[in-house]
C-alpha cells in the first residue's frame, strides 16, 4: 500500500529515465545470438559464393552467385522430397496430435498431468536412439510388420524399413510432441463456458467443434505445424537411418557436401536456399492462417 500511495512523481521519474537496465538484461542473449547465429550465418554467406582453389578444402571468394542455381538444380529432387516428406509428416503428426491434445485438455480428468509427462517422455531419450528404435519397431522381427503381414495389408515380401514410409513416419514420430504441446496449450486456454454457450445457441457437438473449438485452437495448430515442419524439412537423420538411397532429403545432400565431399560452397548455398524456401513458405502459411498476431 505504501508504494501505491506514495506521491507518483518519483516513480514516474524512474520510468522516464531511459535506463540501461533492460539492455543489460538483453545482453547475454544478444551476445549468444551474435556468436552462435549471426557470425556463423555471415560465414556461411561468404562461403556460399566461393569457388574451389583446386586444393581440397581451400576456397577463394569469387562472388559466384551461380553456386545457388547450380546446387539447386543438382539437388532439386532431394529438395522436393524434403518438402513432400516434411508436409506428410506434419499432416500425420497433426492427425495424431490434435485428438490426443483434445483428449488431454478436455477428457483426461485427473490423468492430465500423467498424460502430459508421457507426451514429453520420448525427449528423455536422444533423438538418434529414438530413430534407431523406430527402425527396430518397423523391422523384420518387429510386431508392426508381423501384424500387417498377417492382416494381408502388406505382402510377405514387403519390408517397412529402408523406405519412404519409414522416413515419413519416423519424422512424424520424432516431432509429435512439438505438435501436441502447442495444440494442447491453446485448447486448454478455451473457456469451457464458450463451448456451453455454443450448445446453448443451437450448435450440436460437431458444429461447436468446427465453429468454436477449432478456430480458438488455431494458434496452437499453426505453432505446432511450424515447429514440426521446419525441423522436419531440414532433417537428415531419419532419412539416413530409416531410408534408402532413393529417399535422400536435402539435409542428407548438405551433410554429404560438408563432411564427405568437402564442397563447402555448395553445402552453404543449399543451406541458404533451404532457409529461404522455408521462410517464404511459412510466411505464406501464416498469412493464409490469418493469425499473424498470434504466432
Amino acid at each position, binding site marked *: 500500500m505504501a508504494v501505491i500511495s506514495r506521491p507518483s512523481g518519483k516513480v514516474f521519474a524512474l520510468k522516464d529515465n531511459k535506463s540501461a537496465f533492460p539492455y543489460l538484461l538483453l545482453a547475454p542473449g544478444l551476445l549468444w545470438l551474435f556468436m552462435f547465429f549471426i557470425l556463423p550465418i555471415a560465414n556461411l554467406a561468404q562461403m556460399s559464393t566461393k569457388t574451389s582453389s583446386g586444393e581440397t578444402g581451400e576456397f577463394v571468394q569469387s562472388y559466384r552467385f551461380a553456386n545457388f542455381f547450380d546446387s539447386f538444380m543438382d539437388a532439386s529432387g532431394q529438395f522436393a522430397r524434403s518438402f513432400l516428406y516434411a508436409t506428410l509428416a506434419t499432416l500425420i503428426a497433426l492427425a495424431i496430435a490434435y485428438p490426443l491434445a483434445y483428449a488431454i485438455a478436455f477428457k483426461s480428468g485427473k490423468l492430465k498431468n500423467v498424460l502430459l509427462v508421457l507426451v514429453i517422455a520420448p525427449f528423455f531419450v536422444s533423438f538418434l536412439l529414438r530413430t534407431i528404435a523406430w527402425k527396430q519397431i518397423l523391422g523384420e522381427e518387429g510386431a508392426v510388420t508381423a501384424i500387417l503381414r498377417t492382416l494381408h495389408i502388406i505382402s510377405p515380401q514387403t519390408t517397412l524399413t529402408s523406405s519412404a514410409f519409414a522416413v515419413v513416419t519416423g519424422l512424424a514420430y520424432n516431432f509429435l510432441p512439438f505438435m501436441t504441446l502447442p495444440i494442447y496449450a491453446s485448447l486448454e486456454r478455451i*473457456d469451457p*463456458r*464458450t463451448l*456451453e*454457450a*455454443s*450448445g*446453448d*445457441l*443451437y*450448435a*450440436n457437438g460437431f*458444429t461447436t467443434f468446427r*465453429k*468454436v473449438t477449432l*478456430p*480458438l485452437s488455431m494458434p496452437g495448430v499453426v505453432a505446432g505445424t511450424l515447429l514440426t515442419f521446419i525441423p522436419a524439412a531440414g532433417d537428415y537423420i531419419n532419412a539416413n537411418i530409416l531410408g534408402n538411397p532413393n529417399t535422400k532429403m536435402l539435409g542428407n545432400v548438405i551433410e554429404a557436401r560438408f563432411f564427405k565431399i568437402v564442397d563447402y560452397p555448395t553445402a552453404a548455398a543449399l543451406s541458404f536456399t533451404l532457409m529461404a524456401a522455408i521462410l517464404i513458405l511459412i510466411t505464406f502459411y501464416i498469412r493464409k492462417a490469418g493469425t499473424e498476431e498470434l504466432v
Partner: protein
Amino acid sequence: MAVDASTSAKGDLIIKNLTKTYGEFNAVDDLSLVIPKGSFFALLGPSGCGKTTTLRMIAGLEEPTSGSISVGTTDITDMKPYKRPVNTVFQNYALFPHLSIFENIAFGLRRRGVSDAEVKAQVDKVLNLVELPQLAERKPNQLSGGQQQRIAVARAIVNKPALLLLDEPLGALDLKLRRQMQIELKWIQTEIGITFVHVTHDQEEAMTMADTIAVMNNGKIEQMGSPEELYDSPRTSFVANFLGQSNLIPGTITGNDGDNLVIELFGNKVAVPKRRSSAHGNSVLVGIRPEKFRVAAEGKGATGNVLTGGVVSDVSYIGVSTQYQVEMPWGKELMVFEQNDDDEDFLRKGEKVTLSWEPVFSFVLDGSEIASSGSH
C-alpha cells in the same frame, strides 16, 4: 427433420419434482414450480443454495437426477441443450473471442439456417435495442464489461427463445452500472415479452427487476411471491432475514381480538393481523422490519403496539436515516431505522426509549423457526 422445439415450444415453464444429487448432497431437492409465460422470475438465494444448478438443468447443461422440466406441453427434460427453446446469458458472458460482435449475435441465427439478409436485419435490430450498433465489427475483448454484458443479452434474445436464463448476469459489474443494467434488462424484458429467469444472490437486484421471486435455500424453495409479498409477509425466518432485515422477537399467542392475534412479548401485549401469521402453534416469532419501528424518548406518546424499557446502545447516522440499536429488558438488541424527515432531536446513546409500530406492519412466524437463519 423432427419438429424443432427450439422454435415451436411456447408457454409456461413447468418444473416438477426436480432433484439433482451429487453423491450424498442434494443440490436441488424435489423442486416444483411454474413460471408463467412472459414473467420476469428471479431465483434468489445464497451461494450454494441450488439456484445455478436449477438454471443449468433448465438450460440442459446439467442432467437432473429425477423430475421433469417442460415448456408449455413440450417436455424438455432429456433434450440436448441445442434443441431447447432456451437461451442463456452466462455469468462471465462467454462471448466467442474469435468472432466479431456481429457474428457473436448472429451465431444462433446462423445455426438455424436463417438467410444472410434476415440475419443482418435481426442482428441490427437487436444491436439497436441494446444501443450498441456502432460496435458490430469489434471483437469482444475490445468492449467494456457493461458492453459485453449487453452483447451477451443481445446474442441470447435475438433468437426469440421461449425462455431467457440469466445466470448472475450483473455480478461482474460495478454498482452504478449494475443499477443501470437492472433498469435496462427490465425494460428489454417488457419490450420483447420473453420469460426471463434470473438467478441472483443480490436481493435488491431481484426486488428491482422481478415480478415473482422464489427464495431458495438448501435446494428448496423457501417462499415464492411478489417482492411486496415476500417483504411484508415472509413465512420463514430465512426469508425474513435474507430479504432485507428483520427483528424477530419470541412470544406467545394469548388470544384473539377481531382480525388480530394478541401476542405477549416479554410482558408487552401486541396485536398482529391474523393474515400475516404463518404460525402453527402458540409459540411464535413476531417480526418487525427496522424501518417500521417508531422510536421515542420514554414517556412520550406512543400508539399501536408498544415495547417499553429500551435503552439506546448505538447510533449511526447515515444520511437518509439514522440507525439505532436498542437494548431491550430481555437482553436482546433490536434494530431501528428512523427517517431523518423531521427536526426531532437525535436520541443519544444510553437514553431510555419506547418502541412502537402499527399492527399491520408486523408479521408472525412459527416459534420453531431459527431467528437468525438467513441473516447477512
